[in-house]
């Protein structure tokens, strides 16, 4: 089926591969910047990852004017304000974010404040409020999953009001995403697995949900192929530089895909479960992915798309050996097999029960919350409360 209409947008320069970090000084000077503020978290700094970045810059005579290394996993407007003050007092003229989803979202918020002025970031919440480019901004992802380096959105919690502020604007996008295999080389196995499954979910939902389009499809299938070719290799050999780079690129490609075609019910369920039971996002994705795909298939949706995904998921031989009518089911089975392999290697939970953090009595609340999640709009099959609850029950054990 050809798509009647679509939009596709990704103006982020991608700088990827060995010694990619060493391109940062040149890229900074190309934008007229020389005094970057580095934003990260304690874990990333403790693992010595920021040293690679500062080292690469110093060799070219660029010194960080300040480093903020205390971004919490669930960032807030207070943290954004604190970092904006540091930016101003240190005389910085650009931002380098080194970290995962929280660091990147926080840095997007900081860039809004330091570019637009003031201390109240809530003023700029919503879609399309920003009207002009912000300060030079680079993102160095340290997990291969979220894809936040190529998404034009950020979520920052306002803890005093107890609300999550959404920001959406193309100006939130960094000038460049710098993908260097050194940054993910030391990721522990369970995080490698969970974040890769997040990326796999981004690509799979981008390819199966309502806003799919030919350009995002190309990124999605490319990402899936890289993940299925490399994830288990990296799990078995964490120091596999090439494999790490492939996973990191897959994450960015999946990010480009889903930021242009959105995600679906796996994410609605994941967001709700994450909020209520405090489970990591990637773990939720891995957990729900096959159940939601089965649900969509049972409602007569996604058969063609899933059948196509068997090729990047399982390779040409399996694809060719599977009769056309069974390819969709085989694609889901391939994802299930991958989850089994990951469970063997790092105990990544396959069911809600296995997480040990979800009570069966919480499922109705999760279902309720998932129904209000933004991503449910783009799921190919409609789902009401009872249907969402039955998917949750399927995922229970």
């Amino acid at each position: 089926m050809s798509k009647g209409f679509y939009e596709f947008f990704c103006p982020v320069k991608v700088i990827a591969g060995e010694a990619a970090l060493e391109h940062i000084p040149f890229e900074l000077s190309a934008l007229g910047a020389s005094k970057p503020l580095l934003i990260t978290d304690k874990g990333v700094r403790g693992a010595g990852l920021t040293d690679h970045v500062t080292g690469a810059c110093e060799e070219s005579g660029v010194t960080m004017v300040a480093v903020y290394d205390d971004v919490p996993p669930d960032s807030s407007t207070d943290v954004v304000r604190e970092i904006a003050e540091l930016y101003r007092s240190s005389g910085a003229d650009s931002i380098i974010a080194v970290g995962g989803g929280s660091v990147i979202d926080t840095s997007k918020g900081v860039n809004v404040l330091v570019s637009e002025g003031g201390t109240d970031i809530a003023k700029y919440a919503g879609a399309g409020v920003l009207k002009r480019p912000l300060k030079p901004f680079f993102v160095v992802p340290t997990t291969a999953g979220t894809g936040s380096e190529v998404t034009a959105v950020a979520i920052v919690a306002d803890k005093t009001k107890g609300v999550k502020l959404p920001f959406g604007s193309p100006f939130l996008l960094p000038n460049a995403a710098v993908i260097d295999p050194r940054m993910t080389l030391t990721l522990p196995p369970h995080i490698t697995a969970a974040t890769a499954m997040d990326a796999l979910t981004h690509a799979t939902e981008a390819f199966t949900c309502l806003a799919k389009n030919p350009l995002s499809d190309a990124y999605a299938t490319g990402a899936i192929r890289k993940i299925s070719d490399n994830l288990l290799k990296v799990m078995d050999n964490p120091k596999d530089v090439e494999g790490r780079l492939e996973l990191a690129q897959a994450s960015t490609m999946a990010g480009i895909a889903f930021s242009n075609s959105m995600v679906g019910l796996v994410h609605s369920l994941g967001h709700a479960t994450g909020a209520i039971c405090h489970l990591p996002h990637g773990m939720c994705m891995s957990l729900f992915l096959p159940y939601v795909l089965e649900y969509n298939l049972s409602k007569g949706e996604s058969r063609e798309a899933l059948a196509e995904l068997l090729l990047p998921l399982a390779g040409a031989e399996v694809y060719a050996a599977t009769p056309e009518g069974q390819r969709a089911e085989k694609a889901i089975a391939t994802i299930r097999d991958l989850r089994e392999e990951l469970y063997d290697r790092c105990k990544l939970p396959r069911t809600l029960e296995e997480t040990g953090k979800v009570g069966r009595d919480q499922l109705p609340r999760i279902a309720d919350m998932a129904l209000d999640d933004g991503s449910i709009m783009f799921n190919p099959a409609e789902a009401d409360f009872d249907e969402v609850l039955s998917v949750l029950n399927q995922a229970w054990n």
Partner: protein
Amino acid sequence: MSLQQIKLQAMSQSKRLYVTTMMQVVGRALQSISEQDEEIRKITSVFPVGFVFSMQVLPEGPGFALRKNADNSLAFLSELPEEKPDLTIYIKHLEHAFRILSFQESTAKAFANDRMLVDGDISYAIRMTRALNRLEAFILPKLVAQLAVKEYPDIPLPEKVIHGARIYLRVATNLISQQVKFA
């Protein structure tokens, strides 16, 4: 002016007329259905009382607005409010509004196709989209409604017929009384 230009202008005028009328019909029908249908009131129950929802075509309308009452029903506002509504679904162009309101493109599809944007809380927008889907199922013949919504809700026939008839009736009487007022 060439014949082609005249034709285009006439087409655009009739589209505008159609969209303007349908916006009114949908707005009024939402009020009617919210007074009678428990499900719709469940959908609106999380909105604060006085919450204003609007749907507008960019750049300057047409559109409609509704305000939530204490009993979770929705009151149709005869004019678009001066101050910014709590939630607005903007349709980017008259042509897109025409496709949506003539049920050639479903609301979910219209969101997926970037025809519409949300100004306000996205979870509220999803709830309003559900309300619109339910409304469409009520007031449209099944065949047309299936085009407009992702899934036709499983409403037993008598209920649907009764509801549908009632809503048609309310919409018609509302429109007629309005016309009488203006006449």
